[in-house]
């Protein structure tokens, strides 16, 4: 086994941030999830290059790293759209009609939850409770939280995003 750390995949500065996380944890194997978090937040998604780099740096088998990356919902292997509409489908939101919001959003965007419009503009995602159940139903427009959402309000935002293409 090659024990020397692999070179950074490119001179993109973000790899230095990723490397920093691993260094802070002494390149220990158990830093895998923490490091994948750094990749996810720096790059927005995990591709093969990133997983391979992290796995080799931490001496984690490739298949194990891939297994971890695909186990957790928070990590995505594909880049998200320019905007993300996240609809909470936790129990409190569901009882307050989040399924209707989802149906409306799917109809408007012509995509299923978990997908991105073909033009790469809007991703439609689901969450399992963001902890704002007191204001259910809740959606996240990019990272801004909106409570007591009526379908109309959500659709207006989707229109605005679509128009700003």
């Amino acid at each position, binding site marked *: 086994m090659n024990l020397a750390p692999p070179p950074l995949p490119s001179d993109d500065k973000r790899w230095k941030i990723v490397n920093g996380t691993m260094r802070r944890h002494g390149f220990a194997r158990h830093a895998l999830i923490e490091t994948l978090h750094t990749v996810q937040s720096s790059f927005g998604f995990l591709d093969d290059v990133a997983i391979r780099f992290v796995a080799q740096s931490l001496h984690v088998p490739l298949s194990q790293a891939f297994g*971890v990356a695909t186990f957790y919902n928070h990590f995505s292997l594909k880049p998200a759209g320019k905007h993300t509409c996240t609809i909470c489908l936790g*129990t409190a939101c569901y*009882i307050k009609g989040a399924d209707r919001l989802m149906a409306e959003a799917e109809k408007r965007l012509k995509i299923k939850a978990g997908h991105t419009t073909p033009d790469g503009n809007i991703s439609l995602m689901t969450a399992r409770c963001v902890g704002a159940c*007191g204001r259910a139903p809740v959606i996240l427009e990019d990272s801004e*939280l909106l*409570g007591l959402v009526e379908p109309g309000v959500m659709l207006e935002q989707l229109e605005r995003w679509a128009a700003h293409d």
Partner: protein
Amino acid sequence: MTSEELLQIAEEANADREASDFEVNVCVALGCLSQHSDKLKDTLTAEAAAASPRTGKRCHVRGTGCMGLCAAGPLVRVGSAADAGAQTLYAGVREGDVKALIESLGGKPVERLTAHLDQYFRGQIPIVLENSGYIDPEKIDEYIGRDGYQALIKALTEMSPQTVIEQISKSGLRGRGGGGYPTGLKWSTVAKAVGAQKYVICNADEGDPGAFMDRSVLESDPQRVIEGMAIAGYAVGASKGYIYVRAEYPLAVTRMTSSLRDARRRGLLGNNICGTTFAFDIEIRLGAGAFVCGEETALIASIEGLRGQPRPRPPYPAVSGLWGSPTLINNVETFANVAPIIRKGAEWYASIGTEKSKGTKVFALTGKITNTGLVEIPMGMPLREIIFGIGGGVPNGRKFKAVQTGGPSGGCIPEEHLDLPISYEALIDVGSMMGSGGMIVMDDTSCMVNVARFFMEFCMTESCGKCIPCRAGTAQMYQLLTKICDGKASHADLDLLIDLCDVVKNTSLCGLGMTAPNPVLSTLRYFKHEYMEHIDHQHCRAGVCACGSKPLSELSQAEVPA
């Protein structure tokens, strides 16, 4: 830090507080923050500063944690700084109200903004939430000003680890993460376990979708959790702690990170805490979106950087946990109860609650209910009082149908059991469970088969996939429930569903699979007629399901379900 130094900080903090004539507390926890209460706070600060020279009064504007009633936000509590108990709570405060609000200080409250919520607070006993909404969660000194860290110092300087555990045992505190395991017993098992290194883990994964007690505690009173963990570390002989927080709670993570730093700076974490030989420090680990990671062995796997899959127990984490070392895992709310118990004594705590369920429990009251938000009630309070008293009942003139507790592991409790006094045992007796504290009220617009299907879908997508009954069993049950909702199922399908419930419950590897059938079993127990209506008449009385809701009047009289 000694207890004298601590008292001095507390005195300074309180003197600081009372140096102002008035205070304006603005909730900046997630619920109100989503209504831009941070900007509101800035406006209030500017307005108060502008008014000060004119009135000659000093007014302190503070950002606080959750005040409970999230749906009525943004919430602001104002009044005399010397008497926090007599302050006025305002709901739905907007930028435009700021002037009137500041002007009213010292005079009559602004009537149109006043939240008339006596009913909401009646019967609540804040212990876990006692500081929530009263202190700035980012200021450790404000926590110390409200008796913070006295318990830790008392434990370290006046009590042996053994006495600490005895106090916790005597208090009758049980795990607030769902199972209700006696906390003192767990602590003493870890204390007795042999191992050079031991760990304390705080389970802040809060996976129950529809519950936010733990988030609120982490955001509103983070030092409380740190103090509880440190006391636990002392009691069981651990020097290292982890807080496992779900990634969906970024604000809680930020607050916790800065709070840990403050505690270290004050010498309340690190080496030689309070001049003793006790050393303890805490690190944060982020979850990554997996409900099953709330299960303790899966959580440990996740901290170790692996797929969050549970493993068979025994051995229990208390004996062999993180990296094979004895590990204490408790829930956020469990840890939040520790400091008050040590400070005020086990007898005081045990005097609250029922015979077997002591103290208070925080619930997240949501769904079809007038007052949604957080409530902390003594164990033993009847469900009816929580829902129709504190919660204000079902809005829009609709009829109460069921209350769901225990999340995806729990069940739906119908009207006939509403007089049930809340306790771990009583909830299990009626086919639900305490769970972490989600309490979701449903009215007659909810279809109970559909609700069972919703939870089954949740369990199916959250199953880790390791053991076959949970992996394939939840998928099969989900298909059967869909068939029933669609009005395409036969009686044989229902029998098969009931059989699968039994098999999955008894053969699954971890709690997720073992409890996944509960929502089906409890709705079958109380709402079997709704299942039969879907199967025999393709009828959904709530009008939710795809089979439609042929109005009952169109069914021939003989067909009308009882």
